């Protein structure tokens, strides 16, 4: 057990309290007649007890494995942030610009994240991938993909 367990335990304790609180207005009911909030409430209580146990055990153990930041030491964590940010922007733009344009843009960025290569190769790979996936899923498998304002 370590500092990371203490923090994660506290996080889960907060989630458990939140779940218990929102279960009350739903209606916990009684053991005789359990309501819709019955299971969420008792699951929240169970989660809360476990998270408190986790925190107590990690405190009692007293051994620390360094700061939380050590989990990201020596790793290219900025790439994770970049991918996640681009994914969130993608979800915002997808309904507006449509599948082909948005996915091509996303892929241009993603193809350059792990490998340094010439820009034109990156762009060409992205365009081909987006088009091929469009043909497979939209045309062949008839998956509904957003068309956007340009109808693509």
């Amino acid at each position: 057990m370590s500092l990371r367990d203490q923090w994660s335990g506290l996080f889960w304790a907060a989630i458990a309290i939140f779940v218990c609180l929102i279960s009350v207005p739903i209606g916990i009911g009684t053991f005789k007649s359990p309501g819709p909030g019955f299971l969420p409430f008792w699951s929240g209580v169970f989660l809360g007890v476990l998270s408190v146990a986790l925190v107590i055990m990690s405190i009692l153990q007293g051994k620390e494995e360094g700061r939380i930041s050590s989990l990201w030491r020596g790793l290219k964590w900025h790439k994770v942030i970049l991918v996640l940010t681009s994914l969130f922007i993608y979800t915002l733009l997808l309904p507006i610009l449509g599948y082909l344009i948005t996915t091509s843009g996303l892929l241009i960025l993603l193809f350059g994240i792990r490998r340094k290569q010439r820009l034109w190769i990156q762009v060409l790979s992205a365009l081909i991938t987006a088009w091929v996936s469009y043909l497979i899923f939209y045309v062949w498998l008839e998956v509904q993909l957003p068309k956007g304002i340009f109808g693509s």
Partner: protein
Amino acid sequence: MDILHNLFYGFSVGLQPSNLLFCFLGVLMGTLIGVLPGIGPVGAMSILLPATFRMSPISAIIMLAGIYYGAQYGGSTTSILVNIPGEASSIVTCLDGYQMAKQGRAGPALGIAAFGSFIAGTLGIVGLMIFASPLAEFGLKFGSPEYFSVVLLGLTLVTYLSRGSKIKALMMAAFGVILSCIGIDQINASPRMTFNVTQLWDGIDIVSIAMGLFGISEILINIEETTTAEIIKTRIRNLLPSLSDWRQSIWAILRGTVLGFFLGILPGGGPTLSSFGSYAIEKRISKTPDRFGTGAIEGVAGPESANNAASAGNFIPLFTLGIPGNAMMALLFGALLIHGMRPGPLLIKDHPDLFWGVVSTMYIGNVMLLILNLPLIPLWVKILKVPYGVLFPLILVFCLIGSYSVRNDIFGVLVMIIFGILGYLFRKFDYEGAPLLLGFILGPMFELNLRQSLLFSKGSFLIFFTRPISAVAITIAIILLIYSFISLFIKR
């Protein structure tokens, strides 16, 4: 005779060209994702699940099952050649398989892994045929208290047998159950925990959760890595194991098969646990345990057989009781529901074409895998050389399309990304995603049967202890729970 008659009926379904094609596609994709580190069968199955929506239910399940058992075959290739397990169930194969490759014996290691997998996979299917129908009959005796107790036992066993911290696994399972409560209440039909978001009325979709937890989080973990794997530069020859290799391996294969199959039936006891168990047994009973870790062929044959037999055993609780034992089976459970079939004791009776069709294609799939694996090993090695920088954007696009197509809504994509972040953080903080997914899948069954039992008994929990099946299951579950707690403090 009944079994044979049903099996012939199954072959009449399985040998239909479209089912054969999807079986082939399933085992091919399964092997491929087994070979590729960075995407596991859960991720692949969740990514491909939306693509099955337009297939017939039988073809869809045949393909998804093929991915599952195909991945167990493919996982050994990377373990032996790169010392990186393609799947968690192939971790122990690294120990001796990679050593054999370094000694120039990659061929026999790959060969015995493929033959062992074939033998175990085939015997596992025989076991599935024998045990499934009686267990389904037994399942018909189940009422709400029995179902509740067995689901509770399943959830407890899954957490008890998890690789990491038991307390964290229990927390994940509880969180999964809480997530499953989001949406319309099954009994009162009133919305709960929806926060006025209309998309949440139907609950959260399993595809988005699984893709996020297993697909996206895997990508995030891999892209921040700075190291790349080295592939052994050796000529792969003599794929057929010698007579002496067979002598050393055959009992390990058979022991692995029996252990894997029965562990596979247990909730939580899937391929990973079986392969570790088999390795431990082989090492313990060996007259020369020192050879283990230095290239002992039994150390490859046993675990690789065990994980394939376990993948067959895993289908038993799903098809007979409607209780998935691990994350892969949870996804198959979801797939069956999506395709309008309710897994449970009546599944085999109501949909014999599905059950026997899947069983027959498992035989066919095992033969396909054996034929595919040995000649295609050079191709798998070439695929291993595809840089991750090229691979992960493609996987990501699959995930995005898959999560969008579930409801044709951007909401699914958002849920997937959020669970991707959660899955990434879970891995950092040593939490496993599988108990969450299982809790999420079993949650509705858990709740419905708990509430119905309490309504019947007018609030008395004794109902779970007065009926024999329920009493046994709930007693074991409680003992395991108490033991888990006590062991936490004893360890200290």
